[in-house]
C-alpha cells in the first residue's frame, strides 16, 4: 500500500482504493447489503467460481467475506460479486490480523469458569445434602484442585483491572470483585487443608467469576461490533493521490505521503488530499464539506484550494502547500480534541453506581469482620461472615445490568442501520431535548434538482449536452429530462470547457451550456445558448432527503426542539427550513460559529443532539451532548460522532431517541433490581446466616432476572 501498486497502473484511480498486491493470502471484503441465507449462498458460490479462489467464507454478523486463495486481485472479486448482484468493497489487509483475539480470550475464560463451576457445584451439592467427615474433606480438596487454577485463569481480567486501579490510588468495581474471589478461594483452601468442617466457598468464587465474565463478554461484544464496523468505514476510503514527478509521469501514492511542493493531479470527482494552489486547469470546486455552501465555486490557475474539497468539472494540477497534519483540517481537529476531553468526563450509569457502591461494600465487609470477631472471638467465623457479605453484595447483577441492556439496544439499532460507537451514547441520547441539523448533505442529499418548469425542447437539448459531465447541475438536468421521458437530441463535436461549460454543434449552429456569465446571461444556475434567440436560464435547488420531513415531524411530536445550522447563505437555508417546518434557522455559520452556538445552548442547560456530515460540523459534533454523523459523510465527521447513520434515513433518528430512552429506563430498572436483592441478602449475611448455598442461589437468581429483564421485548 505504500507505493504505486502494480494492479492500478499509472493514474487509473478508477480501481478501488485498496491496492493489494496479487499474492496476498486472504482478502477481506465488506458486503454492506447481505442479510439472509440466500445472500450467503450466492456470495459464496459467486466467489468460489472465480479462478484462484480456494475458500470463501461469509461472516454475516460483520457483513464481511474472507476470501482465501492464490494470486487474487480485489478488483476481480468485486466485479465477480457485482455480476451476482452484490455490492462489495475491499478492506484494508491490516484489519485481518487484529480481529477478535480479546473476545476469544474472554469467551475462553467464561467457558473455563462455567465448566469448573458446574463440577465444583456437583461436589458441593453432595456436601450440602449431608456428606460428612472424610467424604466432605475429600470433596473440599477436590474442589480446591479444580477451583484454584480455574479462578487463577478466569479471574485475570478482574485482577488486572483492580491492580491497575489500586496502583492509581482509585477504587473501581473490580476491587471488591477481586477481593471477594481471592478471599473466598484462599480461606476455603485453608479450611480444606486444615480439614475443618467450615463452609467452603469454592463454588461461590467460581460462580461469581462466571456471571461477571458473562457481563464483561457482553459488554465487549457490543463494543467490538461497533468498533469493527467503524474501522471498516474508515478502511473503505483509503485516501490516495496522483503525484506528478519531475518527468511528468503519474504515480498513485497514499495521501499522507504527500509533502509540500509536490504537484498533484486531480481528476473530476476526486477529493483534494491536501491544501494547495492551482497551477493548471479550470474547474468548479465543491466546498460543501468544509463550509456548507451548496453552490460550487469556480477555480482557475493561482486560486487556493483546501483539503476535503471535491473537484467537479475539469482536471486540475495543484501544487501542495500544506499536507497531512498541517492542512486546514487541523483547525477543526483542534476543536474536536478539546471537546473529546469534555465528553470523556461523562460517567455512565454503571460507573456512577459502582463509584457509590465499591466503598460501601468494603466498609460492610470490614464492619462485619470486626463486629463478629469482637462478639464471638473466633477469627475464622468472622472471616466467614465477611466473605459471605462480600460474595453476596458482589455485583453480579450490577455487572450485567447495564451491558445486557446495551447489547440488546445497540443490536436493535444496528439492524435499523444505526451504528452506536460510544459506550455511553445511549445514556446521553436519552437526555436529548434539542436536535440541531446541518443542512448540506444532511437534510439535503448534496445533489441539485431542477427548479421551475423549463421548456421541453430546451431541456432535452441541455440534457444532451450535459450527459457526459459529472457536475451536479449537469446531473440534475439529465435526471430532469429522464423524469419527463425526453429523448436526447444527437449533437456533434461535444467538448467540455473546464470551469465554463459544454459546447457542441447541432446542424451548423453552435450550442453552449454553462456558466451564465460565459453565455452572456445574468442570474444563478446554468444558461443554454441555442445559437438563436435569447439564452435560456435553468435554476436549481437542493434536493431534500425524502424522509427529512417525516423525521422532523416525528421529533416535534416527541416534544423535541429542532434547529438548522448551516454554513450556507440565508436563502437556501430558509427554503429548506420552510419546506421542513423548522423554525430555528442559523445561516452563514463558520465551523467555529457552530461550535459556539452549541456551547452557548449547552450553557443554557439544553442537551443537544447534533446531526451532521461535513468537516465544518466536526467541532459541533464533538461538543454536542450526543452526535449522529451520516454514513455518507466525511471520515472526520464519522469519527467525531457517537452514532453513525449507515442507511442515510433520517427518520431513524426519532427511533434512536425512543430506543435509547427505553434502554436507559431498563438499565435503571436493572440496577434497582440488583440493589433490591442486596437489600434482602445483606442483612442475612451480616447476621451470619448466609451459607454458600444461599449465596449461590441469590447470585444466580439475580443475574438471571436482570438478563431476562434486558431481553424483554423493547418495543
Amino acid at each position: 500500500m505504500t507505493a504505486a501498486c502494480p494492479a492500478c497502473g499509472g493514474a487509473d484511480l478508477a480501481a478501488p482504493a485498496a491496492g493489494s498486491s496479487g499474492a496476498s493470502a486472504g482478502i477481506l471484503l465488506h458486503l454492506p447489503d447481505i442479510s439472509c441465507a440466500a445472500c450467503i449462498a450466492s456470495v459464496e458460490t459467486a466467489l468460489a467460481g472465480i479462478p484462484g479462489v480456494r475458500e470463501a467464507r461469509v461472516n454475516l454478523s460483520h457483513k464481511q467475506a474472507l476470501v482465501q486463495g492464490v494470486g487474487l486481485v480485489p478488483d476481480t472479486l468485486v466485479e465477480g460479486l457485482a455480476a451476482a448482484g452484490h455490492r462489495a468493497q475491499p478492506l484494508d489487509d491490516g484489519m485481518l490480523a487484529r480481529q477478535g483475539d480479546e473476545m476469544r480470550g474472554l469467551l475462553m475464560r467464561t467457558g473455563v469458569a462455567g465448566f469448573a463451576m458446574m463440577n465444583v457445584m456437583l461436589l458441593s451439592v453432595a456436601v450440602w445434602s449431608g456428606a460428612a467427615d472424610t467424604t466432605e474433606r475429600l470433596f473440599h480438596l477436590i474442589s480446591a484442585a479444580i477451583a484454584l487454577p480455574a479462578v487463577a485463569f478466569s479471574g485475570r481480567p478482574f485482577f488486572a483491572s483492580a491492580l491497575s486501579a489500586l496502583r492509581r490510588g482509585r477504587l473501581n468495581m473490580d476491587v471488591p470483585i477481586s477481593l471477594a474471589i481471592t478471599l473466598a478461594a484462599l480461606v476455603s483452601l485453608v479450611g480444606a487443608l486444615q480439614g475443618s468442617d467450615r463452609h467452603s466457598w469454592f463454588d461461590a468464587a467460581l460462580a461469581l467469576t462466571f456471571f461477571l465474565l458473562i457481563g464483561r463478554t457482553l459488554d465487549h461484544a457490543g463494543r467490538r461490533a461497533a468498533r469493527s464496523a467503524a474501522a471498516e468505514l474508515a478502511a473503505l476510503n483509503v485516501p490516495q493521490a496522483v503525484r506528478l514527478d519531475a518527468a511528468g509521469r503519474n504515480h498513485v501514492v497514499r495521501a499522507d505521503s504527500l509533502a509540500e511542493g509536490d504537484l498533484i493531479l486531480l481528476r473530476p470527482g476526486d477529493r483534494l488530499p491536501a491544501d494547495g494552489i492551482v497551477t493548471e486547469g479550470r474547474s468548479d470546486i465543491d466546498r460543501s464539506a468544509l463550509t456548507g455552501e451548496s453552490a460550487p465555486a469556480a477555480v482557475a490557475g493561482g486560486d487556493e484550494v483546501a483539503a476535503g474539497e471535491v473537484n467537479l468539472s475539469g482536471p486540475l494540477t495543484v501544487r501542495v502547500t500544506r499536507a497531512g497534519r498541517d492542512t486546514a483540517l487541523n483547525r477543526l481537529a483542534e476543536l474536536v480534541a478539546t471537546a473529546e476531553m469534555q465528553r470523556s468526563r461523562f460517567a455512565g450509569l454503571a460507573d456512577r453506581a459502582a463509584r457509590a457502591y465499591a466503598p460501601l461494600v468494603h466498609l460492610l465487609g470490614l464492619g462485619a469482620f470486626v463486629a463478629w470477631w469482637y462478639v464471638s472471638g473466633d477469627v475464622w467465623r468472622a472471616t466467614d461472615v465477611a466473605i459471605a457479605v462480600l460474595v453476596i453484595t458482589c455485583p453480579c447483577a450490577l455487572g450485567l445490568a447495564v451491558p445486557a441492556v446495551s447489547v440488546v439496544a445497540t443490536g436493535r439499532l444496528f439492524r435499523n442501520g444505526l451504528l452506536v460507537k460510544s459506550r455511553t451514547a445511549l445514556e446521553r441520547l436519552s437526555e436529548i431535548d434539542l436536535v440541531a441539523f446541518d443542512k448540506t448533505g444532511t437534510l439535503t442529499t448534496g445533489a441539485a434538482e431542477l427548479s421551475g418548469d423549463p421548456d421541453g425542447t430546451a431541456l432535452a437539448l441541455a440534457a444532451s449536452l450535459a450527459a457526459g459531465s459529472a457536475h451536479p447541475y449537469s446531473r440534475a438536468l439529465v435526471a430532469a429530462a429522464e423524469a419527463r421521458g425526453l429523448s436526447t437530441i444527437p449533437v456533434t463535436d461535444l467538448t467540455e470547457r473546464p470551469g465554463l461549460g459544454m459546447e457542441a454543434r447541432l446542424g451548423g449552429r453552435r450550442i453552449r451550456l454553462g456558466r451564465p456569465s460565459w453565455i452572456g446571461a445574468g442570474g444563478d444556475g446554468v444558461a443554454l445558448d441555442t445559437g438563436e434567440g435569447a439564452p435560456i436560464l435553468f435554476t436549481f435547488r437542493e434536493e431534500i432527503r425524502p424522509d427529512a420531513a417525516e423525521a422532523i415531524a416525528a421529533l416535534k411530536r416527541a416534544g423535541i426542539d429542532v434547529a438548522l445550522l448551516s454554513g450556507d447563505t440565508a436563502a437556501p437555508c430558509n427554503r429548506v427550513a420552510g419546506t421542513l417546518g423548522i423554525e430555528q434557522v442559523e445561516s452563514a455559520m463558520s465551523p467555529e460559529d457552530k461550535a459556539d452556538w452549541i456551547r452557548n445552548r449547552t450553557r443554557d442547560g439544553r442537551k443537544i443532539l447534533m446531526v451532521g456530515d461535513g468537516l465544518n460540523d466536526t467541532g459541533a459534533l464533538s461538543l454536542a451532548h450526543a452526535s449522529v454523523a451520516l454514513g455518507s459523510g466525511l471520515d472526520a465527521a464519522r469519527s467525531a460522532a457517537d452514532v453513525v447513520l449507515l442507511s442515510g434515513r433520517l427518520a431513524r433518528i426519532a427511533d434512536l431517541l425512543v430506543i435509547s430512552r427505553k434502554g436507559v429506563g431498563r438499565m435503571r430498572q436493572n440496577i434497582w433490581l440488583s440493589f433490591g436483592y442486596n437489600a434482602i441478602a445483606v442483612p442475612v449475611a451480616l447476621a451470619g446466616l448466609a451459607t454458600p448455598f444461599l449465596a449461590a442461589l441469590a447470585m444466580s437468581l439475580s443475574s438471571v432476572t436482570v438478563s431476562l429483564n434486558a431481553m424483554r421485548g423493547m418495543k
Partner: protein
Amino acid sequence: MNVLVILIPASLGLGLIGLLGFVWTMRASQYDDAEGDRHRILDTRYDDAPKK
C-alpha cells in the same frame, strides 16, 4: 464409599471432556458468526454431501 473411587474420576472426566470440546469449538472459530450460522441452516448447498 468405595464407589466414589470410580464415580469421582468419572464425573471429573466427563467435565473435562466437555471443557475440551468447548476449547475445540473455540479454536475452530465456531462462535465468530452467530448471526450467519443461524441463517446457514437454511442453506441447501450441502444437503446432499457435506462441504469438503
